[in-house]
């Protein structure tokens, strides 16, 4: 054996007493967090967005930048963005998912930097698969092993496409599912507001599912009706493409879902810390997530491309 590996090799392990004390401190902090602030759903949303790539519009559409592309017209309000994105959703017929299929999503991401946000100067490629029924999400370990996990909130395209498909009915269906999950999920603190949960669920569904045009249109319109959602003009994704974003500002961070300003195809996400506050190590202005969708297509199994 080599010398450094052996150096102080007989150091005693953590005592049970130290371990119990440290674990108790962690749990106390976790419980205090819930009591004082409630769950941090803006953050959870951002993480989920980063995982999923969000807003799965334009399945099967490749990234084409035409030289004579029409000019982007500024959107005046989040309602207008919702309406125009909805109209664009109808124009894209996409692919019709079959039962048992998976949506393969490939995206470019800024990698995380130590424990402090992401490194905007670097990029990594991420791949993920979501089952068409919305119940499972899969990713590859570096060793090539496929990890399949449950997906939140577990609704699929078929559940959302039941008639009538209107912003109110689709949001209503998601709300019922969330309320049901809320009842079955043990929480040690107060639940986040239904608006917050709805917002998160809509982006998660759009981000991970191949949805029919009318459902996507209804979700875009519905998004614009959720309090706290606004428009941000001119945001760049991880590939440098500039777009217009649905934005949600939580307690200490803002997340942008970036759409192409002309055809409202999903481009990527950006998240930024907006206040110092809760974590002294993360200053306002720290980038939290930056992604760009490179590809999204239906495949017959998780792990296929």
């Amino acid at each position, binding site marked *: 054996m080599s010398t450094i590996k052996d150096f102080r090799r007989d150091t005693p392990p*953590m005592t049970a007493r130290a371990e119990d004390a440290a674990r108790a*401190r962690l749990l106390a902090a976790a419980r205090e967090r819930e009591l004082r602030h409630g769950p941090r759903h803006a953050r959870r949303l951002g993480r989920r967005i980063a995982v999923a790539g969000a807003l799965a519009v334009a399945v099967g559409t490749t990234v084409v930048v035409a030289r004579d592309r029409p000019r982007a017209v500024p959107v005046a309000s989040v309602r207008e963005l919702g309406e125009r994105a909805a109209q664009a959703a109808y124009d894209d017929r996409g692919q019709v998912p079959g039962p048992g299929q998976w949506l393969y999503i490939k995206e470019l991401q800024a990698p995380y930097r130590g*424990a*402090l946000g992401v490194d905007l100067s670097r990029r990594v490629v991420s791949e993920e698969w979501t089952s068409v029924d919305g119940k499972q999400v899969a990713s590859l370990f570096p060793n090539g092993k496929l990890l399949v*996990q*449950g997906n*939140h909130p577990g609704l699929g395209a078929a559940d959302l496409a039941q008639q009538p498909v209107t912003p109110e009915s689709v949001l209503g269906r998601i709300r019922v599912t969330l309320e049901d999950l809320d009842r079955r999920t043990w929480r040690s603190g107060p639940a986040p507001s239904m608006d917050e949960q709805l917002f998160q669920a809509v982006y998660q569904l759009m981000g991970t599912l191949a949805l029919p045009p009318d459902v996507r249109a209804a979700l875009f319109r519905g998004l614009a009706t959720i309090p706290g959602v606004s428009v941000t003009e001119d945001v760049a994704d991880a590939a440098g493409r500039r777009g217009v974003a649905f934005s949600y500002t939580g307690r200490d961070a803002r997340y942008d879902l970036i759409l192409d300003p002309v055809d409202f195809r999903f481009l990527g996400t950006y998240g930024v810390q907006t206040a110092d506050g809760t974590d002294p190590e993360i200053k306002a202005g720290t980038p939290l997530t930056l992604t760009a969708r490179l590809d999204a297509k239906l495949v017959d199994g998780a792990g296929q491309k």
Partner: protein
Amino acid sequence: MTIETAELDDAEVIRRSAGDPEQFATLFDRYARQIHLYAARRVGTQAADDIAAETFLAAFRRRGSYDPAFPLARPWLYGIATTLIARHRRQEERMLRALARTGVDPLPEPMADAVVSRVAARDKDRELAGALASLSRGDRDVLLLVAWEDFSYEQVAQALGIPLGTVRSRLHRARKKARAALGDEEPI
């Protein structure tokens, strides 16, 4: 939605802990003991008690910025622990120099057989301790993560938030010094 915690990767546990903070204890159960041992080897068990506890409190506070593209949180946690160990740099170097000088490792060890291991320090350990004490903190961080924790270069880069090239150059420098102290014997 009915997935056992044991099946979840670290990134998923962290994600879920946003809505249900107590889930974060799963990460503690997975990594606290090894992080404690790593810290104890560097700065002693007493300091390691605090470092291990503080690592998970800091990680818990920063969990919102964890990048889910990395399924395993081990490098992230060691990165936080390394920052905390840095606060004990003087103590770490003082103890290494004492071992180099006297052959007795003053690293606090509460176990009964501590005395045995204290007098049993080999000449090689004395030389190595001197070499480790003379390294810059950054070089020592890289060397020990690779030698003791079997980190890959990529994991070290991720843990310390430094470029891959810097990992290579630091490790090269640290190895060279250790090798010189050991009379050209390969240190790792």
